[in-house]
């Protein structure tokens, strides 16, 4: 009787906390609870943050309890091991995996980020960008942080592949960061996904001090002219032109740009409203659910708690900040060249994070001049940033992939 009770106690997850790396799982459970707090109470990207936190919680609780029902780290270690007979064998995962393993195949194969891009495309109005194509330059400028952080990560001793995955955090685009990391440095997926989504949620805190420091009061007060109206034909042609042009220019961008523009085409044609509705709502919600929980499950204590994670968190912040600075500086240049007609604040919206970065431009601009409405002007660079970060990711994947 006592022996049975003893075995029961020793088999419990609580007993494993004190054994070997058990404390790491305990720390990860605490981190999962913090992420849940940030997602639920603070509403930091809640749609993904809650899923990531629950995935992290389940993976670490399972790890402590030795219950491999949901997620098997050993299967994925074998999947990535060149010497294993199960190297890159999805069949092995399907035959032996649990629920989260099966869901994680969608991340590993790069399916979820592409499906999310279809949804984002179906939600995005490229009208402000089409009516003011110079916004594309701001979207390009705001990728500065990607390459600055890439350089910084190299200095800190990360490999080229790892540095490229860390740098792309500066694109402020979760699905792009996940796709790039899955292809180049899958072992860093957990910290990079958490850093990317956390900083995206923190944009209203990260950007305004930089915007105020780099612009003058006079610049912030600039009222921009009303954008020209964009016709339906133009809006239909835009995704087709972008797909042909960008994919021919940089073929590695095909998964992201192709899906983004496909979603947008569904929205704009006017004859595929049902598909557009599914892409915007049902598909987006289902994929977000699967993506969050499976990315969170990669945050197992033994992989996550190391000095690399701290570096990634710091480099992620640097990447976001320098992307904002890049956009603002080119915004200032355009202010000068246009004779004061362009408000440089819209430059900071060139980091993707649609539409939060554009809202920040609107808010900071309106603070200086209550009758100023920059939102639609900032939406141009904002959606240009999505294309820009996809091109940056495409470049990094073609160089290091």
């Amino acid at each position: 009787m006592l022996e049975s009770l003893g075995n029961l106690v020793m088999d419990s997850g609580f007993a494993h906390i004190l054994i070997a790396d058990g404390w790491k799982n305990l720390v990860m459970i605490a981190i999962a609870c913090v992420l849940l707090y940030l997602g639920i109470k603070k509403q930091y990207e809640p749609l993904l943050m809650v899923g990531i936190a629950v995935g992290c919680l389940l993976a670490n609780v399972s790890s402590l309890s030795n219950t491999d029902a949901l997620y098997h780290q050993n299967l994925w270690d074998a999947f990535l091991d060149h010497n294993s007979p199960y190297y890159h064998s999805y069949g092995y995962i399907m035959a032996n995996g649990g629920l989260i393993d099966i869901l994680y195949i969608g991340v590993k194969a790069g399916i979820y980020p592409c499906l999310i891009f279809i949804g984002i495309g179906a939600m995005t109005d490229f009208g402000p960008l089409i009516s003011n194509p110079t916004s594309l330059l701001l979207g390009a400028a705001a990728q500065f942080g990607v390459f600055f952080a890439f350089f910084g990560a190299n200095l800190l001793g990360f490999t080229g592949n790892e540095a490229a995955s860390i740098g792309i955090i500066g694109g402020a685009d979760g699905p792009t960061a996940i796709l790039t990391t899955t292809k180049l440095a899958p072992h860093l997926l957990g910290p990079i996904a958490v850093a990317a989504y956390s900083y995206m949620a923190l944009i209203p805190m990260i950007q305004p001090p930089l915007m105020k420091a780099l612009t003058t009061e006079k610049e912030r007060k600039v009222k921009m002219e009303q954008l020209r109206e964009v016709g339906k034909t133009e809006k239909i042609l835009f995704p087709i032109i972008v797909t042909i042009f960008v994919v021919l220019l940089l073929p590695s961008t095909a998964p992201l740009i192709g899906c983004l523009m496909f979603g947008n085409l569904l929205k704009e044609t006017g004859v595929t409203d049902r598909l557009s509705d599914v892409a915007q709502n049902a598909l987006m919600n289902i994929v977000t659910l699967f993506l969050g929980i499976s990315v969170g499950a990669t945050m197992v204590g033994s992989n996550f708690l190391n000095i690399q994670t701290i570096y990634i968190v710091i480099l992620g912040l640097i990447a976001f900040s320098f992307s904002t600075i890049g956009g603002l500086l080119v915004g200032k240049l355009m202010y000068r060249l246009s004779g004061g007609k362009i408000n440089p604040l819209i430059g900071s919206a060139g980091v993707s994070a649609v539409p939060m970065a554009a809202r920040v431009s609107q808010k900071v601009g309106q603070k200086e001049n209550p009758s100023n409405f920059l939102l639609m002007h900032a939406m141009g660079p904002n959606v240009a940033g999505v294309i820009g970060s996809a091109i940056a990711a495409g470049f990094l994947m073609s160089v290091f992939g």
Partner: protein
Amino acid sequence: MSEEIAAAAVETAEKAGMLGLGEATLDAVLGYLVVFIGLSLLMVVVIIAGKIMVSRQKKEAAAPATAAPAAALAPAVSAAPKELAPGSAGEVKIYDTDPRDAAMIMAIVANKLGKPLNELRFVSIKEVKEA
């Protein structure tokens, strides 16, 4: 001796997939340039496409105007401008927005600016969706 050590260090770094300072700088600069050039070229394409579309729209708008004299009396009645409400500055175009929400937004903007609604001119109201 030190050259040998440096060469060995470079070799080890290369084996581990790490980049040297020069290569990392080159990749970073090249990557930023590719993004800039790619989007600049796209900008040119979009500007050209936009110019073509605008000129087509202008031609289409001009076509009915030239055809108008031939249409004699009938259009005179239908072409009469729509009567606006007293004090109105025109019509607001609404995209993906419920008219009641649009009315509420206009009221909020007027309230925030501290100006009467009939002194403001709203051109269009468009919903911006969360991606």
